[in-house]
């Protein structure tokens, strides 16, 4: 049996639909007591998340139907737009802070996190940039330095919010795109070595980051203080056992878990649906990764391939980092779980980029059209499918 891109796409859409469904259930379960007590409406968060899921569906359809090459034309304006969004955070009345971080933009009663959007703008830009310079991809000055400058600028702007998690994922996904597109290994290694002292200094300078690292290394050092969050997450996961205490019956969300509806929603899942629940969601995300990879592998143009890979990497990285944080494999980052955590920016943008992948997938074999339509696709050259470990077409 052969699996072609249509199957991958269908599987991807089913996986994402499942994830969004699980997300709605968990948002309701983890928020109902809090919302009931504070807003006298246990459905408050569920209703909002459902509205955003609807908006996300619209965004998905929009992106699914929009020829993905069109994003190319707007990659530079999008980049500048992202820059403006990040700077808007510092305009009083527009930028909103919460919990010591300036991460939200408030426009007409609607708040969103620019960093969620900016991550994918950067992916789109890099895909376009690298495919435009595909003849000089190993060139240090023509490709490596400009790409790095953009990545650096954006991650820095996100970092000062401060949003370490998003900044790191921008850097990491950016470098991964450089890596798979053929940047010299030597350049990447040199960069890594050069960045090491800076990263270490940054970590040690900010007191709360050091606290996080220390409490990550030994949460029981201060179980009531900095270790409290991660211990509560362990307790939630551990209470779940194989099958969990039952959906809605979890207790750790009752003010024991920090950010039970967002960053630590995976712990709620672990307590209520147990190992079966957590491993299923993990496998769903792994499935998303593989579907994205398969779609990318059979996309013959470099732009589409890089775009799909970048988006897939970004989604997967966020998901896996979030899970790793929740079960104590990584220090606390403040990254939401895509599709599942409560929050509009995250959900809408995630669904939108799934739409982009879908559009890439549905274009297979019709690349020739683009030249006629005079949509930016100069230097088009069909690619051989990526080798994949499953020998799937």
């Amino acid at each position, binding site marked *: 049996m052969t699996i072609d891109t249509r199957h991958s796409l269908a599987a991807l859409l089913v996986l994402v639909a499942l994830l969004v469904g699980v997300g709605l259930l968990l948002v309701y379960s983890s928020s109902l007591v809090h919302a009931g007590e504070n807003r006298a409406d246990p459905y408050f968060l569920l209703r909002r998340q459902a509205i955003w899921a609807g908006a996300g569906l619209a965004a998905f359809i929009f992106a699914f139907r929009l020829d993905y090459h069109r994003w190319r034309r707007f990659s530079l304006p999008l980049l500048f737009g992202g820059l403006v969004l990040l700077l808007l955070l510092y305009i009083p009345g527009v930028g909103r802070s919460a919990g010591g971080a300036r991460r939200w933009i408030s426009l007409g009663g609607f708040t969103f996190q620019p960093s969620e959007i900016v991550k994918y703008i950067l992916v789109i830009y890099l895909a376009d940039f690298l495919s435009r310079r595909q003849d000089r991809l190993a060139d240090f000055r023509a490709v490596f330095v400009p790409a790095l400058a953009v990545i650096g600028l954006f991650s820095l702007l996100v970092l000062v919010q401060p949003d370490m998690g998003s900044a790191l994922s921008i850097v990491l996904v950016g470098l991964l795109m450089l890596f798979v597109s053929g940047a010299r290994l030597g350049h990447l290694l040199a960069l890594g070595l050069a960045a090491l002292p800076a990263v270490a200094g940054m970590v040690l300078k900010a007191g709360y980051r050091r606290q996080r690292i220390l409490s990550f290394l030994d949460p029981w050092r201060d179980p009531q203080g900095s270790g409290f969050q991660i211990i509560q997450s362990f307790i939630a996961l551990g209470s779940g056992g194989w099958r969990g205490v039952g959906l809605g019956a979890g*207790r750790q969300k009752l003010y024991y878990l920090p950010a039970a509806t967002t960053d630590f929603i995976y712990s709620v899942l672990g307590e209520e649906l147990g190992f079966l629940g957590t491993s299923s969601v993990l496998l769903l995300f792994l499935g998303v990764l593989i579907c994205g990879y398969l779609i990318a592998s059979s996309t013959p143009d470099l732009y589409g391939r890089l775009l799909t890979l970048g988006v897939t990497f970004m989604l997967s990285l966020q998901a896996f980092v979030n899970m790793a944080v929740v079960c104590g494999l990584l220090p606390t980052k403040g990254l939401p779980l895509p599709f599942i955590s409560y929050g509009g920016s995250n959900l809408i943008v995630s669904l939108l980029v799934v739409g982009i992948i879908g559009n890439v997938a549905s274009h297979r074999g019709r690349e020739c059209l683009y030249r006629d339509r005079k949509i930016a696709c100069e230097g088009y050259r069909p690619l051989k499918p*990526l080798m994949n470990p499953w020998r799937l077409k």
Partner: protein
Amino acid sequence: MIGRVHSLRANIVLGFFVFFALSILLRLGALQLRGHRDFSEQARRNRAYGVEIPPRRGEIVDRRGNVLATSEEVQSLYAVPDEISDPGRLAARLAPVLALEESFVESRLRGPGRFRWVKRHLDGTEVEAVRALGLEGIGFRAEMKRIYPKGRLLTQALGLTDLDGRGLDGLELQFDRQLRGRPGWRLSELDGRRARRELIWHRRHDIEPVDGSALVLTIDEVVQDIAEEELDRVFREYRAGWATLIVMEIGTGDILALANRPTLDPNFSRLPEDHRRNRAVTDTFEPGSTFKIFPAAVALEKGVVDLDTEIYCEEGFYRGPGFTLRDHRPFGDLTFLEVITRSSNIGMAKVGLKIGEQELYRRLSAFSLGEKTGVHLPGEAPGLLRSPREWSRLSLSRITMGHEVSVTPLGLLTAFAALGNDGRIVRPRIVDRIESPDGVELYRFPRQQAGQPVSPAIARRMRYLLARVTEDGGTGRRAAVPGLQVAGKTGTSQKYPLSERKHIASFVGMFPASAPRFAILVVVDEPGPEYYGGVVAAPVFRRVAERMVGQLEIHQPLGLVTRETEETASTAPRM
């Protein structure tokens, strides 16, 4: 490698992600499957909330329903040391508010532990002040605090409780089981907020406490108040070592008042042992001349003397068989009546010789003088009346004058009260009944008789005799109440080791003499400079009797006890 995505590199990245996912899966397995039991237990412990709901301890009220002891809800401050990260700083903020030593507070806050008292029974302003600090890791728990609204009234008999509401002394100890009630309890869960709230829908058990039963005493607050005041007065005036005053209702044995000195207000002070002693029942003393009543009654009962029998009192110095005696002043020939009214030791000794050792002992025993009265108070001491086998040659003469015997004040008064009750002893009662918190009678203590040491006729004759003691020429004339005939006997005993300075002054009396309703005993230890019972104790009796007459509307019944009424041995019904 130009112009295309590196397959190998893409695969490496893919592999990296798969490896990442696998390590998460392993970690989840470790936490959720291997750690399940530990973490579940930890979760249960974090949430578990069990609390005992204290019952309200029963009230203690007097015979009129006046509250003598009650309980009120107060807040106690506890710490959860496990949740306190900086005990030093917390202690520095708490200590001044609680008026405690900072080092002490810190020692209470320092871990490990989930619960430790910091300060019990805070007053309202302290609670407000602590709440205002808004600190973490501490909390309040409601407790019941024992309150004695009448302050020093009846302190020793009521006793006291510890901070946990357990009776330590007095009635609080004797009836602890009845007063205590049964605590309720609640098992539930708490949420994870700093100010932890109960998750009411996870409450598993909620058992209401059962409040304790109430004690209704025979004590009459009005009489008790008089007793406390008058005893206080004599205690201060004569700088006494200790003093006791008991008022008993004749016929029922009900104790109307029972006061001891020294004393303190149990609400505000930790009572030292000395102030807690209910000497009226726990301590015995050599009664001295007040005791002469009993051998005198025995002599009359046995018929060895009558009131007019003349006895030569040897001009104050008597060398008897194996002993020598002195009187407080020399007397010549005295009638038996005068021997009592003037309290001649020599006269009494001679009467005692006439009675004989065995007979004296047997009949004194009938007054229950060597036993406990059985009153419902803890630590009652029995009197001491040795059998003739243990007597020396001195003993007979000593016992007739109230030495070589010892009695508790209550034991003495109980025996004495028999003379006002046609010779029948009634056991003293201090608790009338036990009532449920809503006032339903659960148990009533019966009135019990304990033998009849003398006949009604002799009892009446004794009352006449004792009435004469309080008339002009008697040692107890200072006990006389204008317009009311009273009967009583003074006592002044030297304390051992014999010294000129240390005495116990006492007076025991009843009124009205013709139909006695109340008996009063006053004992004052080591008064000074005056020490005669007739001078120190008799006036206390008078003042208490006088004030009781005023408060309780007691009237002199028609007819006094006279030579004639008692001689005719009237059998007219008593009131």
